[in-house]
């Protein structure tokens, strides 16, 4: 199949020079110095969902579209570069100092020019109120999560109101992930304002852009350049976000009605769009990755050898090719659950468990007592067949195809996979979360702060009042005190080197425990007008919306 595609691409090379997408990059945003970006212009940006709740820290506000829009509007104290390193964002924070004795104290010196759209300056009080709201101490706040905030002892005023002193009860190395984005005190000081203040509206902002209109009928959001902005002024005059269903996004782009949107690899969109005139496909790899999770508490998968046999029996390169083949990229599997290859410190911790080795897998099963009369037959132990249930959400064809590939690979080592399709709107609540499955594949998404993003997915069970283990959000239901120790070690190590060391240790332990087989990074793919600069697929990084614009035409 690949060869055929390549051959076809070769035939058409004279007609179109962009047949294969560019090889994965750390970021693909057409980075251009802002001096070379034209002043003015409107960018129409296609999104596929119209959020109701615009508070990104609210349970119902954790949507991609919310983050896409708010990054132009709300303060982000730390920017992340394309290697996943955080740096203070001088538009809001001009200095950061960290002390560790006797406890961790992070002192942020705020940009005194920074002000909310109400005219009020951004001060320590905004940070203090938000830390309190997200600490989890008041359940009335319908907060998304409390990781990090629950480790803050207090937030107080420094030498003046433009200095924030954050005192941590327990050390927290990923503090740049906090307060991103920051909300004004007015909307975090009480639960009612927090829960409903940003409902169907974006009342207060403090970014290079302002909200001009939120149209609930047409489902568009119009932003215009903020005249009171204290930083480098936005190059674009306006950004209009338009909500359209996936097919309509394609048509709107071809029609010139939108200039930029995220493409889905799973549809025919990529094929349809990539040869359109004046179009550039910008693709990069970020922190999102796909994986297969095994349920470590089912009778069969309780045995670590069986889990390892499954790891060895799955050819991950084939799965990566099936998913990313359309792009023409070399398949690259991921061998780390916490750090991406683009990040410093990435290491392949898979050891003996990351290679495709069906013979070794068969041997492991044999030793675990799962035997078959003939190779290729379903193995049995004590008369019970080695049958596992792979659940896939209905109506999502790529997941089904992926499960079929796994099914045929594992059949070779005598493991019978029964693919069960379940309603997409019950996948997690009825199957994954209660542990009612054997295998499931889904995507871990993150922002490049590995512990902040996924801590609870790996933590060991905690006994409840009746002494029954509670796995909470560790849906693989596998854990060990050593993993916990390494993760907390990473969380507490303020020295980057030690944190990386601990993360790799945790990852190595998880390979040894047979907890979750990482597959490949999910690419970010955007169709973009080729004259647009500083926007597209940011990889691990954060976009600077003030620099987005059209390249000056010679």
């Amino acid at each position, binding site marked *: 199949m690949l060869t055929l595609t390549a051959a076809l691409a070769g035939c058409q090379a004279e007609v179109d020079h962009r047949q294969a997408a560019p090889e994965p990059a750390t970021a693909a945003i057409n980075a251009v110095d802002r001096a070379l970006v034209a002043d003015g212009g409107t960018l129409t940006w296609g999104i596929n969902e119209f959020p109701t709740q615009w508070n990104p820290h609210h349970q119902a506000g954790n949507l991609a579209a919310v983050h896409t829009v708010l990054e132009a509007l709300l303060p982000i104290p730390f920017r992340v570069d394309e290697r996943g390193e955080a740096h203070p964002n001088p538009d809001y924070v001009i200095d950061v100092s960290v002390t560790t004795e006797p406890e961790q104290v992070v002192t942020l010196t705020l940009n005194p020019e920074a002000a909310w759209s109400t005219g009020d300056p951004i001060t320590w009080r905004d940070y203090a109120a938000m830390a309190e709201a997200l600490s989890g101490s008041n359940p009335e706040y319908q907060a998304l999560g409390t990781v990090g905030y629950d480790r803050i002892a207090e937030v107080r005023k420094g030498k003046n109101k433009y200095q924030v002193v954050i005192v941590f009860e327990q050390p927290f190395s990923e503090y740049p992930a906090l307060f991103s984005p920051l909300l004004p005190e007015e909307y975090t000081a009480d639960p009612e304002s927090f829960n409903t203040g940003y409902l169907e509206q974006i009342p207060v902002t403090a970014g290079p852009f302002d909200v001009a209109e939120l149209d609930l009928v047409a489902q568009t959001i119009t932003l215009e350049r903020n005249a009171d902005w204290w930083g480098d002024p936005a190059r674009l005059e306006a950004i209009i976000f338009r909500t359209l269903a996936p097919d309509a996004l394609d*048509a709107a782009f071809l029609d010139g009605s939108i200039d930029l949107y995220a493409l889905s690899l799973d549809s025919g969109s990529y094929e349809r769009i990539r040869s359109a005139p004046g179009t550039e496909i910008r693709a990069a790899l970020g922190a999102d990755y796909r994986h297969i999770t095994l349920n470590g508490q089912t009778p069969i998968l309780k045995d670590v050898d069986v889990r390892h046999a499954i790891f060895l029996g799955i050819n991950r390169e084939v799965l990566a090719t099936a998913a990313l083949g359309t792009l023409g990229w070399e398949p690259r599997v991921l061998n780390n659950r916490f750090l991406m290859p683009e990040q410093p410190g990435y290491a392949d911790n898979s050891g003996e468990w990351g290679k495709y080795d069906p013979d070794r897998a068969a041997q492991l099963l044999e030793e675990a007592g799962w035997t078959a009369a003939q190779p290729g037959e379903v193995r049995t132990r004590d008369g019970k067949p080695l049958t596992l249930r792979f659940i896939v959400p209905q109506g999502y064809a790529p997941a089904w195809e992926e499960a079929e590939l796994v099914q045929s690979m594992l059949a070779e080592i005598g493991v019978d996979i029964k693919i069960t399709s379940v309603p997409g709107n019950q996948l997690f609540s009825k199957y994954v979360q209660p542990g009612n499955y054997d295998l499931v594949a889904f995507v871990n998404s993150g922002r490049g702060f590995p512990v902040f993003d996924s801590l609870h997915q790996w933590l060991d069970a905690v006994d409840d009042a009746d002494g029954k283990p509670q796995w909470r959000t560790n849906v693989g239901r596998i854990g060990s005190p050593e993993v916990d120790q390494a993760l907390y070690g990473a969380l507490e190590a303020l020295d980057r080197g030690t944190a990386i060391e601990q993360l790799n240790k945790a990852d190595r332990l998880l390979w040894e425990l047979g907890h979750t087989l990482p597959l490949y990074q999910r690419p970010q793919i955007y169709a973009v007008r080729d004259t647009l600069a500083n926007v597209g697929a940011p990889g691990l990084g954060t976009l600077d919306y003030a620099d987005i614009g059209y390249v000056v035409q010679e």
Partner: protein
Amino acid sequence: MGRRVVVPLLRRVLRRAVLLFTAVSCVYFLAAATLHPRENFEAQRPPPPPAAVDAALDAANLNDRTPLFQRYAVWISGIAVGDFGRTWDGASVNEELSRRIGVSVRLLAAGAVLGCIGGVALGTWTGSRVRGSADRAVTALSLLVISVPVVVLAVALQHVGVWANQVAGMDLVRVTGEATPGFSGGVGEQALDRLRHLVLPTLAVALPQIALYSRYQRSLIADQVGAEYLRTARAKGMTRSQAVVRHALRVTLIPAAAYFSYSLAVLLTSTVFTEQVFGWHGVGEYLFEAVGQGDVNAVAAVCCFGAVCVTAAGVVSDLVRAVVDPRSQAG
């Protein structure tokens, strides 16, 4: 209209109201029993704390751990005062639904009118020359349009639109949305902009309607063509066309109107594909999205709206018959 018309009419309205109540109650039970709003929270990695999820679900009367009848009681007492409750993410269902009804009406009005008039005209024309070559050609074409799924027709029209714009080198039609966002111009320019957005979806709505109605109208007319009174009319010197239009058409409009009013009522909540392909955020898309998100209150509200539309269509067609058809006064 005297008592003899009004009393049975009222009785029928009352009967429909009871039917409506039963229907919406069934819809609520069905939606509440099969949809899973909890998934919106549980599918987040990591999911919010369980207590917070329950609190959020309780706030919208969506908690599957509350007994179904208790949820129904809360819901129906809201309906009694015209409140359809809130979506899982906290928006007012009433407000969203009324916005979307506006969009659907604007999207469908032109197409529906075009569909009715076109269907009747085409059906009358072919019905009076059954098995002629024109009739065969129209029959083949309408069967083709009827058998093509609406989504395919809509996407095909959209492709044609993009292609036409490219060939013309200018924006003749716009393929998505109701109006250009941020468009500034005079009233005339705004109207033209809206018109350019309306052309393709109107065709996508009208073509299947024309095809379907024309089949129905054709057979109604064909039944009349051999009738005694038409022969009399022709004997008096009318041409075939005159006789059909003046006499047969009138007779057929009574069953046609009933049929149209029901199918238009259904149309309002069922044009999800046309809405999604052309990027209009109407009622059909609302139902589709709400089902996907397990949003019980929104699903129930759209279904209620659909039931009200069908009931209203029934009342309208009763009314039309009572006024137009002399026979109904005798019964």
